[in-house]
């Protein structure tokens, strides 16, 4: 193919100034069981920045009409009306949903009450639960499943929304879970996508805005479907361990380790989980290629991982296996790889998935179960990790499974057919 041919194809070159047709897409932000840290990260994003996306200056992607409770002009019903229209299919434009924070198990409450609320029953769209008095708050969990159905794509931002995070840790009373768990493995967006996951506690802002941009470029036809891994993470950001690009990796290789916080060497002995954690902060920095956990001197606690926090607890304690892998790091043996694969597999499972022996991700083949050998190894591994401290693995076994997992099935929402967007049929879920 010659350059002329490439350039003549209107879809081949994503560089070319703002969209001349002023296409728009609505972005609905839902705040579940979170801390607003993902919003803080969103405001910090610079490549692209929120303001560029809202003003519509990012090449080839539609201008974003933002509905965000922390940034919107209007409150109350004026704020909620667009949410209602989205659910009712009368918005008149496509939309995406971004969930910040996990989904609590409040759908299981028999009567009134909520752990996270948004709007009141008087704002409820048709087809959505509106029990109780008109001034009773609606639950974020009501909106989450109702909005997901017609969304072009659903995004989870941050570790709470992706995997459950701290609100879902051992001892929680809210039954919190990630967006994927809640919607269930069958979920597909109107464009056929399972939930897109951008983890991190808090995530790097640019990781999120760039993923959003990439998906919108895909909708535009400018790029092929972005590479997501088997858990729906953007693979180009999360395939590598954070250790591989760590600026202290040279110390690690030489077997020179920090003995206490403030030392300059590799932090593995003061609790760094970097070798088994998938995160790009050592590459991208915390913001604008500045900062970053180990770069500043803080050990990695695995905040991007499905197993966070319990599988990395207690913090500031050397991970099991670090003694082995650390001291013999120069002789890079198969044993270390095996150990790492083991803790990486464990870290890529939330306690909810462990209990269910099922991963609610539709992105890949890895959604399978653990082999018996993995289970035996995991047993000894946990013994080491929790020696002399609280055994979260045992606690998590007793933690009740949230009742509203797989909500779409419970609500009888059929995910096997396509959903018309703007009256016109897009790619069917089957075709995808």
């Amino acid at each position, binding site marked *: 193919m010659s350059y002329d041919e490439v350039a003549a194809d209107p879809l081949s070159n994503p560089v070319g100034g703002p969209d001349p047709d002023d296409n728009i897409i609505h972005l609905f932000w839902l*705040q*579940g*069981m979170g*801390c*607003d*840290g*993902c919003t*803080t990260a969103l*405001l*910090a994003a*610079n490549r692209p920045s929120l*303001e560029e996306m809202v003003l519509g200056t990012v090449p080839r992607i539609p201008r974003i009409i933002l509905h965000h409770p*922390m*940034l919107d*002009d209007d*409150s*109350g*019903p*004026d*704020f909620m009306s667009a949410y209602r229209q989205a659910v009712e299919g009368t918005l008149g434009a496509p939309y995406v949903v971004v969930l910040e924070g996990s989904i609590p198990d409040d759908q299981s409450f028999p009567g*009134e*009450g*909520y*752990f*996270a*609320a*948004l709007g*009141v029953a008087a*704002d409820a769209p048709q087809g959505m639960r509106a029990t109780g008095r*008109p*001034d009773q*708050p609606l639950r974020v969990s009501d909106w989450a499943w109702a909005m997901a159905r017609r969304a072009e794509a659903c995004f989870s931002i941050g570790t709470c929304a992706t995997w459950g*995070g*701290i*609100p879902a*840790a*051992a*001892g*929680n*009373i809210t039954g919190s879970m990630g967006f994927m768990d809640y919607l269930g493995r069958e979920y597909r967006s109107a464009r056929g996508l399972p939930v897109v996951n951008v983890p991190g*506690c*808090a995530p790097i802002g640019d990781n999120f805005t760039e993923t959003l941009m990439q998906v919108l470029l895909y909708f535009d036809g400018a790029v092929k479907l972005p590479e997501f891994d088997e858990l729906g993470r953007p693979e180009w950001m999360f395939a590598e361990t954070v250790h591989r690009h760590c600026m202290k990796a040279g110390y690690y290789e030489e077997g020179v380790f920090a003995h206490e*916080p*403030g030392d300059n060497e590799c932090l593995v002995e003061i609790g760094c989980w970097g070798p088994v954690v998938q995160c790009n902060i050592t590459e991208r920095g*915390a*913001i604008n290629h500045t*900062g*970053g*956990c*180990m770069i*500043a*001197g*803080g050990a*990695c606690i695995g*905040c991007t991982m499905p197993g966070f*926090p319990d599988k990395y*607890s*207690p*913090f500031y304690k050397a991970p099991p296996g670090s003694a082995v892998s650390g001291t013999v790091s120069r002789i890079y043996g198969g044993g270390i790889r095996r150990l790492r694969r083991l803790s990486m597999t464990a870290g890529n499972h939330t306690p909810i998935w462990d209990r269910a022996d099922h991963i609610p991700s539709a992105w890949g083949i890895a959604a399978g179960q653990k082999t018996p050998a993995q289970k035996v190894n995991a047993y000894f591994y946990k013994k080491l990790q929790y020696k002399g401290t*609280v055994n979260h693995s045992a606690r998590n076994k007793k933690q009740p499974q949230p009742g509203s997992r797989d909500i779409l099935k419970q609500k009888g929402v059929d995910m096997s057919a396509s959903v018309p967007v703007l009256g016109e049929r897009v790619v069917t879920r089957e075709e995808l």
Partner: protein
Amino acid sequence: MHAVSQQGAGQLRRIDFDPVARVAGGLALRTVVDTERFEVVEASMLATMYRGYEVLLRGRDPRDAVFVSSRACGVCGGAHAWTSALACEMAYGSAPPAMGIVARNWLSALEDLCDLPHHLFQRAGPDFSEPLVRQTSPELWARAQQTPAANVATHGYGLVSEIMTAMTPFRGGLYRRALELTRVAKEAYGLVGGKHPHPQTTTPAGVSALIDPSDRNLTLLRIDKFLDYSREVAAVWDDLADFFLTADPRYADVGAGPKNFFDFGRWDDPFAYDATFENAPVWGERRWSTPGVIVDGRLRTTNLHQIDGGVEEFVDRSFYEDWSADGGVYATDPAGNNVSARHPWNKETLPQPGGPNLNGQYSWSTAPRWDRLAMETGAGARMWITAMARKQPHSRFVESTGHSLVMHMPQAALPEATLEWLVPERWNAFERNRARAYSLVHSTLVAYENVLIGYDLARIGGPDARTFTEYEIPKGGVVGVGYWGGPRGAISHHMEIDNRVIRNYQILAGSTFNASPMDPFGTPGPCEAAVMGTPLLSTRQPERYLDAMRAVRSFDPCMSCATH
């Protein structure tokens, strides 16, 4: 229309806002408005989200406390992380070395630089922007177009209307500049903090960071940008507040509240802080922001034992069961001062979800009170107490005069200057925002000063230049408490450890005080009280209810913090 129901046939009308936009976290506001006098007569604030951090922390290894509790808030995660680290190091009996304390100070001041501009321009700011002012008060807009801005030399806007235009969401220059400058602050924070908003280098007894010359230089150079920027921000809010208060004196009643202020203070003197409970009154008074309680405008105490000792938490209007019936575990604090059964040392968190009922339980926030009085905390309280107390340690840049804070600005792009924040005569939404703008100047200077002290410590070397002290977690039962301040005011974490497992963990945050519901004595929370009595002055689109929103937002409520 916003009316959900009509109350009675008269002029009283129920108006609800679920949710209130442009605040942090989930907040709903329910009001009753007098539609003849255009005034809010009743107001209830509903914290609508609860994750249960206190419950989650119970039964964990205390080594998890810092990083888990940090996630209570993603706006001031650092403040929670440091408060937790303070509680841990008190329990372990290990104080950080001087450099560790100083680095914490500058990170904490930088956290304000990361956040206060977001409040002033992303959250509260749009209420004063051209689109909203034009739509709701055309005559004010016309006046603004005729009114020269007094501080044009500092911020560059010739007319008040130009300031308002620049505050327009996403398009306005001031709106965008706040986004850009907070990114600069977040870079500075990342250098030693690792990442924002949840810093990764926080640890009990110090910071987990090797601070090399580049870290100091690159931090200082970024703070340098705020020497100019913070002055512009203060100049902008001076002009805005003066414009509104002059245009219509009734604006002084928007968000008006009593002068009851509460703060634990923050920014420790590296040579006074020893992490003991016994000496808290001593090291507390050596903080750059002075701990204290002001009642009716009079300074009652600056003693941390008395400040903390007077706190009680009520849950009568909140979604919790009361735990205090059979008295508390502790009759006294660790120094032997009496504490109530409702004090955080004795509190047990017993969540009980339900539908809100304005005559019963309606919020996920508890109602903390001091001496049974509702207390306001935040940037204004911090400035006010520090200004009145005249206790802060020596500073190259800030003076506490007893009625004002005098801030000497070193030269950056703007020439040297002296700014003064005067304790206001009346306290309302405009003064709250003005105080917050000046507190950005204050925090900039504290960050600057502490980095300079960092240079001094590095030059002198020795043990003071270290960032971390070793500690051991004792066996058996120990307790610790951290007192700090976030951008929105007082934060405390009370922790009880038993055999290296957390037995009780209690969090109070600035917004728990400010956004609290009514207490059993019938006193509404400070923000509720400020909305009640607020006149609705918009001449157009009264249903937008702008002045009530201005009143709420002037507290910069952060509901994730409030409920945790």
